[in-house]
């Protein structure tokens, strides 16, 4: 009798343990552009893949995705669909998805919804919001740019002056001016996130005007990097993703959005039963923002020191960067 009970108990525990170990954690993500955009969407996508690898692959973390989802009602349907399929976490990676998250989250109280970039959790217990303090890395890039520019002319090639495209540049300008107020910064906005040809022309125009350092954001910025490469001797500072691979000798540093620590925390919290209610901001301090120095570019030691000092100053709050 006793031994039978023990065997049954053992079998139950074994099933539970094995079952729990066998059932993968499931995350679904919706993005407004392609996973290959080398900017916003790619940053989240690579973070998810990195976390998946850490956890042990597909058997530990199952990821389903929908990209190029720029239509809001379609996104609402996608969020609702993934939630109803029983995903543990649904990530709505785009600021236009806010109202959809607000609509769907109450119907799925056991699902965690994370969305950004924004700071509103709608007061719901199962919603996280996240954003990136892009101006911080912008500031550091700006400090470096000011120290490295010989022509004292810096060019900004941006898409549209909104969102983190704007905040990054605002931080960059502050960084430049903290080193040398005489440096002139010219800005061009192409009016499109995807028009690479126009972005290339903008970069060439900046270069022709004498800029020897360029920066900017959006997926079309690959055109600016190409223009810098063409001309030679023009340096590039990137944001959102590590762009060193595109021009190994010219990219000095990129601000990288590293969502992995945020993802790890959200997963751990979900397992512990906390489904939301917090706003995550990627900052230099919490490691969500990293300045990735390109090993292929020989950065002078003094410049590196200044950059490190800036990072430290922003992290401990002694330097305040306005978005």
């Amino acid at each position, binding site marked *: 009798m006793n031994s039978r009970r023990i065997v049954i108990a053992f079998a139950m525990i074994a099933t539970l343990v094995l079952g729990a170990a066998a059932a993968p954690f499931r995350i679904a993500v919706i993005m407004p552009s392609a996973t290959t955009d080398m900017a916003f969407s790619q940053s989240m996508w690579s973070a998810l893949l990195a976390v998946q690898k850490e956890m042990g692959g597909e058997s530990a973390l199952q990821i389903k995705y*929908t990209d190029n989802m*720029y239509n*809001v009602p*379609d996104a609402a349907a*996608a969020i609702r669909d993934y939630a109803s399929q029983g995903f543990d976490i649904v990530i709505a990676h785009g600021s*236009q998805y806010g*109202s959809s998250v607000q609509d769907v989250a109450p119907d799925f109280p056991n699902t965690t919804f994370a969305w950004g970039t924004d700071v509103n959790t709608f007061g719901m217990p199962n919603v996280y919001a996240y954003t990136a303090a892009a101006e911080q890395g912008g500031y550091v890039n700006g400090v470096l740019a000011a120290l490295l520019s010989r022509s004292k002319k810096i060019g900004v090639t941006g898409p*549209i002056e909104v*969102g983190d495209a704007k905040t990054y540049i605002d931080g960059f300008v502050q960084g430049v001016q903290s080193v040398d107020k005489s440096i002139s910064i010219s800005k061009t906005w192409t009016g499109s996130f995807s028009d690479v040809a126009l972005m290339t022309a903008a970069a060439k125009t900046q270069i022709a005007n004498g800029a020897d350092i360029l920066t900017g954001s959006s997926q079309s910025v690959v055109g600016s990097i190409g223009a810098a490469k063409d001309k030679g001797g023009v340096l590039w500072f990137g944001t959102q993703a590590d762009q060193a691979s595109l021009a190994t000798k010219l990219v000095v540093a990129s601000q990288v959005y590293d969502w992995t620590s945020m993802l790890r925390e959200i997963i751990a919290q979900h397992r512990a039963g906390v489904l939301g209610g917090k706003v995550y901001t990627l900052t230099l301090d919490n490691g969500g923002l990293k300045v990735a120095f390109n090993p292929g570019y020989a950065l002078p030691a003094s410049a590196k020191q200044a950059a490190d000092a800036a990072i430290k100053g922003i992290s401990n709050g002694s330097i305040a960067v306005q978005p």
Partner: protein
Amino acid sequence: MSSSERSAVKAETRGPVFDWAKLVLNGALPLAGVVMALAVAGVFLALLGANPLTAYAALVAGSLGSTFGLTQTLVKATPLLLVGLGICIAFRANVINIGAEGQIILGALAGAAVPLSMPTLPGWFLIPLACAAGFAAGALWGFVPGILKARMRVNEILSTIMMNAIAQQLMNFLLQGPMMDPENVRQGTFLAQSARIPTQAWLPRLVPRTLLHAGLILAVVLAVVVYIFLWRTTVGYEIRAVGLNPQASSYAGIDVPFNVALSLTLAGGFAGLAGVVEVIGVQHRLMEGLTSGYGFTGIVAALLGGLHPLGLIPAAVFFGDLLVGADKMQRAVQVPSSLVTAILGMIVLFVSGAGIWARTWAARRLAVGRRGAEARR
């Protein structure tokens, strides 16, 4: 135009609603086109490692498998129907309106500006005013190419393509500055979106916990109105006459340039209405990407509907169904959404190749021309 020619125009263009055999054929051929396209697409799916049968099961189930799916189909059908009605009117005057993307934007901008600037006024005042403003703004954006074509013979394909881009930049300008949500400015996020539309100006939801809104009813009612306009009013008759045979219409004293401009203006108005309805019905704020490509998919829907306002109703529902199902398919078999775009493109290619409309349309034009010529002898 003699009275016999007039009655020939009337008779010949009463539309497929009263010709059941043609109606069935018009419905069957596009369906055959869709099936053929899906068969070809199945090859691509298989190459990507997805099971075509699972995929197509999701395609069908996605829209029909749940209440939410059904309402989503109708949610998508609404702007398709509205844009399509405008395209229909323009096509009847033999004008192709590819400016709907820009007209939708203008309609959304004007329509959103109304409740945003008067947030304390009641809904029964704001909603009709917003719709009127949206229609007017879209109509303006159609009027400009229309008058340029009528008075200065500036080709409408050129002017509408240019005006689409101008509208996009206008929206960028407004969303970056004057219309940016003050909350976003305060929080330092600077997102390219307007403040939320005050709730009393939202179109009422028809089914709770779904996105289906009263805009659908408006669209269906307008489809009937457009039918009556085109077939039961003098103005509508003149538009159709101009489209069928501009020379004969001109001899009969119909002002051809005026009707061309009018048709583009009306087409713009309906596209603008689609814009404002999307904003106050679904999205509840102005943001980037609000057109969602309806300016182009509306053209496809119009043709699926045989360029007839009443035929457009089932066509818009069918096409909306296809779009919703395609998204569901993407989620089910995890193929990249770009494949879905390619498949939709194939469907449009195959269905347009079913060609029945072009043939019957051309046949009608020629028949009317011949009858006119015979009557004149």
